[in-house]
């Protein structure tokens, strides 16, 4: 089996696995980063969103051989102590309900704030609209992103 060198949350992992394995399953089954979730397996829901070289990326549609050597960040790597501004605002707005889609929502929101420090509602909608939430936390997601932007200033 091919060997890959993965840089995940600033740690290096060497792994032997089929080249077509989606990064999602490498993270979850092989390396124990279970914060990244499976929702659809077809890039339709955003629950599996992570950062690859800083870009919000669907890990269910990203084969492991495409990210050999790239800098990968999962929800666990955003900060485990909830110190990232997005995590802080997610807590103070009590955004999460069941919480299953939230790692994906948070990773998409964090990438948005990285490229746009002060997004308006339209920017937020266009960045976040491919992330589904069945509990319907959208209104609070918007508020939390605005709050994080404000706190970051």
């Amino acid at each position, binding site marked *: 089996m091919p060997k890959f060198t993965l840089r995940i949350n600033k740690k290096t992992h060497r792994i032997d696995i089929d080249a077509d394995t989606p990064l999602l399953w490498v993270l979850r089954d092989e390396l124990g980063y279970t914060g990244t979730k499976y929702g*659809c397996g*077809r890039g339709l829901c955003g*629950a599996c969103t992570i950062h690859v070289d800083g870009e919000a990326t669907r890990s269910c549609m990203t084969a492991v051989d495409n990210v050999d050597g790239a800098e990968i960040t999962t929800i666990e790597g955003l900060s485990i102590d909830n110190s990232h501004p997005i995590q802080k605002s997610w807590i103070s707005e009590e955004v*999460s*309900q*069941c919480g299953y889609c939230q790692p994906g929502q948070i990773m998409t929101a964090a990438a948005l704030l990285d490229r746009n420090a002060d997004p308006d509602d339209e920017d937020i909608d266009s960045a976040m*609209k491919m992330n589904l939430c*069945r*509990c*319907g936390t959208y209104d609070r997601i918007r508020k939390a992103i605005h709050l994080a932007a404000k706190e970051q200033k």
Partner: protein
Amino acid sequence: MSQGYSRRDFLKVSSVAGAGLIIGVVLPYKHRLVAAGLVDQTFDPNVWISIHPDNTITIFAAKSEMGQHIRTSLPMIVAEELEADWSQVRVAQADAHPDKYGSQGTGGSGSIRRSFTRLRKAGAAGREMLIQAAANKWNVSPKNCRAESGTVIHLSTGNSFTFGELVETASELQVPENPVLKNPKDFKLIGNAMPGLDTPSRVNGAAVFGVDVQVPDMVYATVLRCPTFGGKIKSFNRKKAMKINGVLDVYEIDEGVAVVGKNTWAVIKGQRALEPKWDHGDFLSWDSTRIKNMMEEKSTGKAVIAREDGDLTSLNGDEKIEVQYEVPFTSHATMEPMNCVAHVKKNSCEIWAPTQSPQRVQTTAANALGIDTKDVIVHITMLGGGFGRRLWADFVTDAIQVSQKSKKPVKLMWTREDDMGHDFFRPTSIHKLSATLSNQHELTSWTHRVIAPSISGQMAPERFKDGQLDRSAVNGASNIPYDISNVLVDYIMANTRVPVGWWRSVYNSQNAFANEGFIDELAQKSGIDPYQFRLNLLKNAPRHLGVLRLAAEKANWGKKMAKRQGMGIALHESFGSWAAHVIEVTVTKKGELSIDKIVAAVDCGLVVNPDGVKAQMESAIVYGLTSALKGLITIEKGAVAQSNFHEFELLRIDEMPEVEVYIVKSAEPPGGAGEPGLPPVAPAVTNAIFAAIGKRIRSLPIKLKDLKV
């Protein structure tokens, strides 16, 4: 969990104690375990509370957490009566144990309303024992002591003990049978928005859902089911699936073909390689049109009466209006698909499941394996959404069969496609309504015939036969609140092979759409404002009136709207609570609909966690909007036509309106919160569309062609 012994020990100890009572369970063998150094000394006045010497308090939640923040609200009730400091409180999930906790089924918006008094008593018992323990230590009267913020204070001297310092002494005391509950005016936690105990773990990936459970030596599995309901596997390409790297085994189980492997990707690829041939069975010739035709045919047949008031025959002179409302099948589509980890051992079984029904899981496993329920340990994980889907245990049966056959612990996961094709869907329904208006615009009669598949009829066909009444199916129809002298509500069972189940608010979602749409039509026929029309008919329904007025006032009902904009109103009572919404919409000339604003009012009695109630209303509104605007399940060739989120669409953030939620202040007993906000959503939207463009929509989901004028 911070306690110094495992959950397994705790269960053993408790079951030895024959813990049949909810209040006053003591653990007689615990002294021995403490003496032997096996467990830390804790003070456990009952099964809900464990107070540790380090001053932390573990409160056990016996309801499943699926986003309703129940693992915060239930501990709040205990902590309130206990006089705990909220910062001391930790929550732990109770394993399935009917003798200890009573029903752990989480549904019917019932967690708080069905546990409220019991949990208050549990907390109060602990508080009285801690006060007595302190009084004993000081050798003073307990009347001169008070519990406050995790301490007991001696009023005369100001001396105090922390709860942790009282653990040993309190453990020696008798549990009071009738502890005195606090006066609600002294509540400090109840009624305040407390930070969620699970919130931090939901934003850093630490929360453990069913799919996240890992146990040593575990294998992974999927099950491919026949897409056609009632169909069976004829043949499959085992060889091809076995060739996939990481696939360990492929075999038939009751419900389809299991692929077992070393990781999830291997079993997904194995499933795709199966090349199944199906024996589709007789449902293959069915589709949504045929189902609708069957229901239409049945609709003129014999109906069973659910409610009959007055006399419908004497209204010949009045103007009669007849309409038909229709609602389709829809899916729960929880973001976390169905899954279960099971480990079948020699004479026992251990299960980790995201379940709304721990005890159904326990009995399902016990029956399948021919073992005693007490030998089935069920750990309840976090649930990635529930909405009624996880009251079923079909995914547990799969996992048990695979673990038994492969002789290993197994993580069984359904793919999204498996999940969408094999839900227990919200039943489709047809509603035939009629009413008469006198020439003074008085509503003189109302009839509502519900034609729908019966969930009870599917579960217990011998008890709920075709032609019989399924009371649940007329929920929200037979209890229409309006003051009308002549009312007839009846029901016709119209079962199909499509599995049906309890979907958030159950039949209330369909019946409220019909009721509240039709009442709006009658208001229009009468030339009376729809809000005023409802007010006139609710003189004897104070709680309906309360939410209706609150929503209308906060939304500034009757304000001037721009062209092609409209405001709609609807209300409904369900699960012990009342909800009313005012919804503002815009419909463009092209027929594009936008939901602009929703003002919601709810009366759910005394509120434990106001932010939790607000979040549940927001959530029910989005769930309701999805089913009103999108979320359609259709049947083609006896199977579900939709496979994933590109075909079964959910509401997205760019379609999300501004939502305001207002909660009626009330000292009445708590009502439900998870579901009551849903039923009024669809009719408030369609009523608003009528106000905007004069088109009446009587079939869901709303289609673009309905909106073109």
